[in-house]
């Protein structure tokens, strides 16, 4: 990536999906990200539409050991020195969707017309020059927050950022945090 990088590692991403109000401002903001080519990469969906109007929001969690990159048959996905897992390399991706189905957070999207996987790369055009990701700058309810650990601790005194998730026998650790009840160590998903 660009050598004159100003990525600020003290700023981290914190997600609290219970705060998502389904306004989809993040979707519109995401489409402004220059690295996506005006495609929105963030996911907002109803959790269980038959029973509740609750929505959930999902950005790429940027796994420490990204399964999307490891199951890619074309070596198209890479993780950089800051822990950002980048969208598929356009010349390598063969559009097989292995990453789409293997990601435990349901993040990568297959853009059929491009025959290409695309995903959130934490607005690398912005974060690499010290700015915040688009979605986090527009979220009105605090479901998406990008800032320092001190800031989030002060704002959410009853919560703990957690980045360890259990899926069956697998424990996945991530760069992005989910805000959990105070004292939580992990989130058992499945």
């Amino acid at each position, binding site marked *: 990536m660009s050598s004159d990088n100003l990525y600020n590692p003290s700023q981290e991403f914190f997600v609290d999906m219970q705060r998502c109000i389904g306004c989809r401002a993040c979707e519109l903001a995401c489409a402004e990200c220059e*690295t996506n080519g005006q495609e929105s990469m963030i996911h907002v969906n109803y959790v269980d539409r038959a029973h509740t109007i609750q929505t959930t929001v999902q950005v790429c969690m940027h796994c420490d050991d990204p399964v999307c990159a490891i199951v890619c*048959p074309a070596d198209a996905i890479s993780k950089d020195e800051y822990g950002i897992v980048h969208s598929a390399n356009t010349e390598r991706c063969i559009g097989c969707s292995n990453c789409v189905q293997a990601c435990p957070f349901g993040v990568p999207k297959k853009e059929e017309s491009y025959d290409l996987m695309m995903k959130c790369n934490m607005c690398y055009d912005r974060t690499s020059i010290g700015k915040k990701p688009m979605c986090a700058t527009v979220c009105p309810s605090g479901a998406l927050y990008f800032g320092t650990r001190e800031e989030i601790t002060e704002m959410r005194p009853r919560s703990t950022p957690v980045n360890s998730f259990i899926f069956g026998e697998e424990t996945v650790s991530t760069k992005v945090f989910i805000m959990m009840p105070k004292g939580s160590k992990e989130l058992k998903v499945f």
Partner: protein
Amino acid sequence: MIQFVKNLNGKALLTAFAVTFLMLILIFLGSRNLQNFDAALITYLFGTIFAVFGITYRYTVWLQRPPTWMYFKRGFQIFLKGKIFSHLWFVSKQAVLNIGFQKFVYPRGKFRWLAHFFIAFGCVTAFAITIPLTFGWVHFVFAPGSFEIYEAHFFGFKVIEFNLGSITAFMTFHALNWSSYLVILGSLYYLRRRLTQPGVIATQNFESDLLPLILLIIISVTGLGLTYSYQFMKGFAFDFLAVTHAISVIIFLIWIPFGKFFHIIQRPAQIGALIYKKEGEEMGKAVCPHTGKEFDTKLHIDDLKIVTKELGFNFEKADGSSYLDLSPEGKRSTLAKAHLDARLKDGNLFG
């Protein structure tokens, strides 16, 4: 050094040696025991031999990765099972559309597609001309008893003949120049894009994205320069251009296995992914237990369970149920529900 040798992949090394050896035999046969071999092209020959060795080595290492091997294996199993002519038609059609015309680039941008097509067509025609020339497989001679008619021979056999001074002769002798113009136009478009678009600037790096374009431009400009030098400038700077052209081409060849140009070799795997998807759809769809909707082929999900386990990921519970049976939307909702449960257990929805 010892560590480097230890890290080499035995299977890939053997395959690379075998393919290179086979190529050397074909060079020997195709050039009629080297009698048609053009000694002036010897440096290009060494570059090509190294490129073939490196490409085969990397390709074989790449194939051994569990997800790649799964697609490679399944691709051939599907292709050879049953309707072979139908598969052959599908693969040929997709190869022309996706590899020949790179149709998937078109929706990303019309000019992007045109520029990519120019580069791809220019490079492929240049390979098709220069590799047989370098190997001595193609050579030109006067027709017996004539100084007007020129013959092109392939593997020592006459293929076509044409009059010197004809349009065919002009187009044939300048074929590499047409390739160069196409490559220069396409590369300049991409260079401009890479120097002006903020999203691309943020994620690119010099050696992977800019250097290949610069190299293509150097190769094409010096190649064109050779023609211009002897036709219009009385041979001015011919030696300099010839040496610069040779060095840049050899760097290009040697770099194919390591850099961006490897996608030329890797890309046909896309056809395997397409036939895998098409046949998988006929075998049955996977239905997400959360959304109740079809979301992928069952073949793909079942294979992915095998591949993820081979790679050391286990998304199964002790009862045998797998998290991979959920669609991406199902996974996101399951995560949100688990998060809600944790919040409810704590007694506060918001912290």
